[in-house]
């Protein structure tokens, strides 16, 4: 029996096309091993390590044009490898090709033994250690910082507390006002803000006390809730659609590899992240304190470039742009990129906009020129 309005020839043709697609896709998938799916392949060297935190220095891909090194600082949710996903979608490679001296910090894989690490430890301890080491190696008094998402909060707080060590501050998809999701109130945007506020501070404490850390897969489930149909269709429709196209399949698998790498968030640091920032919004109010020192955004007197994504459903633009009126510098710029949270790094248009803007920004403020 054929479908109403469909000829037998069409049905046979569709079936044959589908069969060929599945056969080709099956052969491709059968021949692939996990080792074939590589991310973050740009050559680099380990130059410093403390506890589980590693600092890497990238090997240059072009003649250096900027004297002050730039440190990429990702957060504890996810991993920096997103900035170097693949050769043709790599912020890291783009920056190296533009002549920057580049470092990246990897927070490692926190386990239950790291449950008592706080954001104070990560920001003033480990990040501070990285900055000191880079400055020592380069022979400069201050470095350029590029923070991503939670890592952007780290660099913001560090810049406010140690402004003499920071030459420029570049923020990418970084929340500053954690309650500004209500500004636009777009459907499907800012769910983490809403979700975190639906819990009480005691809920957060009990959750961490029971689990030690904030499990990576727990955060993964929250992220998946933000795009429910996408999550539902990913492993059937999306995969079947591209399964016979090797290039698209590899792109898809590289992204999957990055998504699957979900480190646990150290417990005490997670409590601060969820309660102090998401619930009580202390950062934008200049009420947040690390090691007993108040984080005053007005102390950020170095040049600032704030990059946000116009359709970021995880960090709504208003939550990032709130920084504009808080910093203590008039040298503040914003760069609005099309697309969403991850599109900033992997989007085709971002490849030609993002890295050149960052390179231009740090080059303009290079200490050597001062």
């Amino acid at each position, binding site marked *: 029996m054929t*479908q109403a309005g469909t000829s037998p020839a069409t049905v046979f043709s*569709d*079936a044959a096309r*589908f*069969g060929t*697609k599945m056969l080709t896709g099956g052969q491709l998938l059968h021949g692939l091993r996990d080792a074939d799916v590589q991310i973050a392949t740009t050559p*680099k*060297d*380990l*130059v*410093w*390590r*403390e*506890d589980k935190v590693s600092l890497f220095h990238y*090997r240059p891909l072009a*003649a*250096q*044009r*900027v004297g002050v090194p730039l440190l990429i600082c990702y957060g504890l949710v996810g991993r920096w490898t997103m900035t170097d996903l693949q050769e043709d979608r790599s912020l890291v490679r783009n920056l190296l090709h533009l002549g920057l001296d580049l470092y990246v910090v990897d927070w490692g894989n926190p386990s*239950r033994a790291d*449950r*008592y690490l706080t954001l104070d*430890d990560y920001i003033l*301890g480990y990040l501070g*250690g990285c900055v000191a*080491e880079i400055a020592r190696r380069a022979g400069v008094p201050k470095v350029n910082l590029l923070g991503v998402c939670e890592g952007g909060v780290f660099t913001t707080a560090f810049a406010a507390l140690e402004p003499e060590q920071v030459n420029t501050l570049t923020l990418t998809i970084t929340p500053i006002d954690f309650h500004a999701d209500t500004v636009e109130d777009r*459907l*499907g945007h800012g*769910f983490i803000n*809403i*979700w975190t506020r*639906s*819990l009480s501070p005691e*809920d957060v404490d*009990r*959750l961490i*006390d*029971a*689990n*030690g850390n904030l*499990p990576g*897969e*727990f955060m993964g*489930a929250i992220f998946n*809730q933000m795009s*429910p*149909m996408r999550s539902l*269709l990913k492993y059937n*429709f999306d995969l*079947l*659609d591209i399964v016979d196209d090797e290039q698209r399949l590899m792109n898809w698998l590289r992204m999957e590899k990055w998504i699957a790498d979900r480190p646990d968030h150290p417990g005490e640091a997670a409590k601060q992240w969820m309660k102090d920032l998401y619930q009580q919004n202390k950062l934008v109010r200049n009420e947040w304190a690390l090691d007993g020192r108040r984080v005053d955004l007005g102390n950020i007197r170095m040049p600032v470039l704030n990059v946000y994504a*116009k359709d970021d459903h995880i960090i709504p633009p208003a939550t990032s742009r709130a920084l504009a009126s808080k910093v203590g510098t008039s*040298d*503040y*710029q*914003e760069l*609005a*990129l099309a697309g969403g949270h991850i599109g900033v790094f992997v989007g085709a248009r971002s490849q030609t906009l993002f890295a050149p803007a960052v390179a*231009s920004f740090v080059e*303009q403020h290079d200490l050597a020129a001062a």
Partner: protein
Amino acid sequence: MNSLDYSKAFTDFWTAQGQALMKAQQQAGTALAEGMRAVTSGKLPMWPDMPADLSTGAADLAGANKSVMDLWTAATSVFGKLATTLPSMPGGDGIVEATLRRVVDPRSWIGGTGEMDEVLARMAQGPRLADLWEAERRYAGVLQAWMNLRRRGLEHNAVVLEAWLQAGRRFMEQLVARSGAGSKAVDAKEALALWTETANQQLLETQRSERFLQTQAEMIRATTELRIAQQELVEHFGKQYGFPTRTELDDVHRTVTELRRELRAIRRDQQIPAPVTQPASSPKPLRTQRSTPPPNARQKGTRS
């Protein structure tokens, strides 16, 4: 077996399974409560803080279970209607048809949005119950917490399932509207796009609702309490047999973290660099003439 028969068989199985589970739980609760009464009657040594009658929790769980079963029956009814509608759609290739069939099947609704529930359940999974009399009070605590988690999970699933049902109804209404007299028939690809958009919209609306957020928060609380009850049980055995407990390990970890913190502070004060665990083999960066800064710096402006 056609899709309607399959749906009915699945619903029957699910209902029977649920009833059997509830019966077993009620029996277990009653037996445990009777055991507790015997303990507290003085025939056996008394333990403090005995849990209340577990049959109350079982009744709550039964209520939650029933509401989900009612919703499930409604969901399979919608699926039945869709199952008779979709085969008549022209123009779909194998992928679209297969995907469309899959995503309107209520089983995928539960499977697709139950991820949080599954993650929480995995997080809560701890030791299996053994049969040691001395630990009965703690076992009861674990059982009570487990029953509460199942109840909260069912209550949350009911909210999610309601959203899917609403999405299914909206989808059907739009299909009917688009397939009206004189209109071009909706093909499978259009139907999939319509379903994706409709369901996504409905789910996102639901996720922001007070009820969704409240039931999910309750589920998280229940998961947490179960895990803590399990940990208390394990700690009991750990102490009894001399195994290191979670509390003891946490104490050690806290101490190590504090010592490392002090070490970092000392290093920083005395400007002692941390040891590099691998030789820094980074080649010295090439240094060339610095180019002229691009004249595109804009102060307090926005580029897009």
